[in-house]
């Protein structure tokens, strides 16, 4: 019978294990933990349910950080992007989901454009579909409900859908 695992631990192994645990605790303790998505409470009411659809459907296969940090500010590019994702095997993204996800991304892209414009010190682009508070998508306080964006994400306009 082999000796128990613990008796085989060398000094170096113990140090390595301790260092790993310490590093882990340190990383977690020093970080301001954040969800990978947005704080849904801070997403404007009129797109909040659309955000929920995005968060649920897209996190099935990948981190929400990937699309949120893609830096895409062009609505048409989002159409192609989401189309491509919908067609992934087993995505579970229906045409209706696609419309709602795109509605969220139109708001999100407008946010990014506003932030970019603010950085450049220029006026906010007029193409923004709705006015939302500045200071980052997930840091923005709830915005007053505005008219829902147009149906640019419909099946007929959805890329090659």
């Amino acid at each position, binding site marked *: 019978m082999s000796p128990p695992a613990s008796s085989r631990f060398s000094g170096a192994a113990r140090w390595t294990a301790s260092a790993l645990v310490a590093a882990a605790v340190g990383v977690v303790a020093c970080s301001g933990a954040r969800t990978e*998505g947005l704080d849904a409470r801070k997403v404007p009411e009129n797109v909040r349910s659309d955000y929920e659809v995005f968060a649920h459907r897209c996190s099935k296969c990948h981190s929400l*950080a*990937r699309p949120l940090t893609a830096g895409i500010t062009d609505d048409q590019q989002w159409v192609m992007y989401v189309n491509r994702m919908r067609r992934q095997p*087993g995505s579970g993204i229906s*045409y209706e989901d696609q419309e709602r996800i795109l509605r969220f991304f139109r708001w999100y892209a407008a946010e990014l454009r506003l932030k970019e414009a603010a950085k450049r010190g220029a006026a906010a682009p007029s193409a923004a579909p709705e006015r939302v508070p500045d200071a980052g998508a997930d840091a923005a306080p709830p915005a007053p409900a505005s008219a829902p964006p147009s149906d640019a994400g419909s099946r007929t306009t959805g890329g090659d859908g």
Partner: protein
Amino acid sequence: MVFGLRGGPVVAALIVVLAAVVALAAPARALERNFAGSAQLDYHFVPTTKDAKVFPRAIDGFTMEFAGKLAVDFSEKVSANTKVCYGCHGFEADMMYFDFRVADELNFRVGRFSPTFGAFNLRHDPANHRLSDKPLPYDMGRMLRLRQWNMSVLPSPFPDNGIEIDGAKYFGDSVQLDYAVYGVTGFKADSRPLDLDFKLSRNPLTYYVDNNARPTVGGRAALTVRLGDASDATLGASGMFGTYDPENKQTYLIYGADLSMRFDKTNIRVEYLARRTTFDTTDRTLFKYVVAEDRGDFFMKHGAYAEIEQALTPELDLIGRVDGMYRVGNIEAASELARRSSVLRYTIGTAYAIERGLRVKFSTELWDFSDREIVSGRNIDLGMHAALAGSF
């Protein structure tokens, strides 16, 4: 990974190709480009394996995986994807293909890609997984005793050159049917082989061409059904068949089934796959056991896993997994495996989002081998992973 890119000139050439794609994509307004990537640094610590650093036992130490992907939409119907990875094998081309989509139901993929097989590979890269390690049926370098087992059933990823026809058909908003059929170069080995040679399959020295001029063919079909607003289930079946020696005498057949379910913040995944591999029996002295006259020229390798992922908070996920493999059939005389050998692994882990796009992952694995290690007499091993994974 037949491409097996290594060395400065090759890497430089790859960068030039990438730059050219970007440059070509720039002028036309119709082109939409998206660059994404991920990286994972994992420390694999195997305290119970005395000589863990002896390569045949395990890779004990840091492993780094990086992937950069460029997707270009030339039009609504034509797109291209290029993905370059850096990992244990150096730089590799994981994707370099064009998609021509006639409709949702019909797409032609041509180039280099991982042929559609199983559910695990659909999530592509390590940053999408909550554990550092792959499920055992798909494992590659992080598997303990990888040399004795000649790795897993289908070491993943397995990019290959070829063509795939795939598509998705929607039935209302609740049902999605996916399919894919393909012909690719396939795995390789030298003449008179006893098993697939995964090194040769990705070795650039033998050129990135088929070794037997006969493609491997396969396919997958999957049905996704929405069970509720926050729940769905996908049931899939896959298969792949080809010859792997230059004389086209030896074959491999890989088949599997998978079930993935999602109930709100809980993911449950179950997958089974098996590989039937024939081998050359001309020299019977090579084998550990007497070669049976009837059905003595192949072995079976089965693999399966079941895992559950539970989001405890928006930042913290808890993951549990049980996976294993079972090999039955004759084997090389020098092997530590027996006619029937098995391995079971129990894993528990956590993934914690410390920042958007950045996770730390910790997991502990208990390995239970049916065969005792020759040197230590041990059949139980312990492995621990600590990793930082990020995506952008």
